């Protein structure tokens, strides 16, 4: 079934006329080295940045269906207490309010576009939000020797058929999963799976493991949508600088 679907997708993208405006070449399903082509400008259409679980509306926060499988986060008892405290204090306790990098996976579902680039050795993701960058090395290199604490972790990827599988480690404990106070320790370990499901959609799945905080791994899942406006591009949102400007009265 899987290969049949892929063939249909490939045929569809080869025969579609190039209807995009100047500045947007038609995306081919495969790069010249035969890998799935994830390149382009993508964005989520969910409310996960506010809360990755089911939530009703609050003033300024839209209602949203969660992106967590089973909608349950298996917190260890002490960690659950911390989550609740985080939620109460979120307006100031959320590190994102200080203009810091939101970390991974949160940067993937911030409501801003990002662009994916591919070479034989690297998949690079460039984010409008806070100039974020993720270098995902697909050249067979292992994670460097730790310990390391990076805001965006260290990402090593490989292709499994139509899916880019990425292993991410070496985080700080300074980022949250969302504005609702869901958090992790520096033992966070992610396995991400990016699977194109057509020319303009990628299913993005993240398995989260953190034995300091959760009693078992859990998975989140969402759709990445291709931005299709003519001449669309990644602009700039630098929250730290914008806060400095506000303080300077500029």
């Amino acid at each position, binding site marked *: 079934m899987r290969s049949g679907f892929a063939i249909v997708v490939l045929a569809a993208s080869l025969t579609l006329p190039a209807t995009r405006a*100047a*500045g*947007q*070449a038609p995306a*081919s399903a495969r*790069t*010249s*080295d035969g890998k799935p*082509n994830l*390149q382009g400008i993508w964005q989520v259409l969910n409310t996960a940045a506010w809360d990755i679980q089911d939530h009703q509306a609050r003033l300024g926060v839209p209602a949203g269906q969660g992106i967590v499988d089973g909608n349950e986060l298996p917190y260890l008892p002490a960690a659950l207490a911390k989550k609740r405290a985080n939620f109460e204090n979120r307006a100031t306790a959320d590190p994102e309010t200080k*203009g*810091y*990098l939101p970390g991974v996976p949160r940067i993937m579902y911030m409501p801003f576009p990002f*662009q994916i*680039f*591919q*070479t034989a050795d*690297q998949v*690079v993701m*460039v984010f409008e939000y806070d*100039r*974020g*960058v993720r*270098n995902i*090395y697909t050249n067979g*290199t292992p994670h*460097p*020797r*730790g310990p*390391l604490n*990076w*805001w*965006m972790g260290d990402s090593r990827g490989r292709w499994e058929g139509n899916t880019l599988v990425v292993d991410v480690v070496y985080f700080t404990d*300074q980022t949250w999963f969302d504005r609702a106070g869901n958090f992790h320790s520096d033992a966070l370990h992610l396995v991400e799976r990016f699977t194109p499901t057509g020319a303009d959609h990628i299913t993005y799945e993240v398995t989260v493991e953190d034995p300091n905080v959760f009693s078992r791994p859990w998975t989140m899942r969402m759709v990445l949508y291709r931005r299709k406006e003519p*001449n669309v*591009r*990644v*602009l*700039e949102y*630098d929250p*730290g*600088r914008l806060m*400095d*400007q506000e*303080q*300077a009265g*500029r």
Partner: protein
Amino acid sequence: MLHQEADVRIRHSALVLALALIVVAPLVAQEAAKPKTVGGCPAEPAAFHTCALEKAKSFTPPKTATGKPDLQGYWRAQLSQAFSVEGVSGNEPLVGSRVMPWEIAPAMIVDPPDRKIPYQPWAVPIGRIGENHNKYIDPRTACGSGGVPRLALQDANQILQPAGDQFVLWLFEDHHVQRIIALDGRPRLGDNIKVTNGDSRGRWEGNTLVIDVNNFNGYNWFDDSGNFYTDTAHIVERLTMIDRDTIHYEVRVEDPRVYTRPWTLAWALVREKEAGFELLEEACREGERDLDRLRQAGAKFYFGDTWRGR
């Protein structure tokens, strides 16, 4: 990989200490190797520039699978320094500074022949260790991007030519900056969208990557001296390999509001050949501890106040 770990620890400590230390690391790296020639050309910016233009005529660069010049890899600046694009003379008082001594160095300006920025009269007291330098926090110190072209003279960078030849991606370790250079013939952004590193549109002219940059917000300096441009600047960069490990990097700056004529900088990008080299994360704002103290002490953040309205 030990090198990378040690490097990361040094950077973490540096961010917590005095701000001057943030700038020291790349300077130390440059001091360690002062070559007599770069890419077979003299090791002085103007002499390098003339020689490199000539060498470029007869050098055929390696090509990508799709036949484009292959500029990919990790690069470090040579023949550049962060203090002043106009050079640093022995008379400069900051050469004797005890916190971070400036080095005597030639100008990176190769045109006009006097190698000074051809400022309009109103702009002269603002750049050149003037009002910008004396009254404002260096925007790079405040964890902003170094901007174009200052980014390309600090720390390591990486050029990628992703599949499809629609973009060149230029990544900089410094403050995790990236520049997306569009090769697809798209139109300019409208004038009301201004971004820190400008909007870059590129094309190949023979073996040269030509990059047209507009739509700056003007919140950046060229150097530590506070030499500056505004949000109406137009910068054209030209990157040409002159041998397998050397790129001639030329930058032409145009802004009739600020300068009496266009002017040009040049230096070299030399290939970083350490096995297993990768750009590391440099999370400036997340580690910065001194900005609030500076702000409380009355220091001002630079958002183009000195040129706004001129």
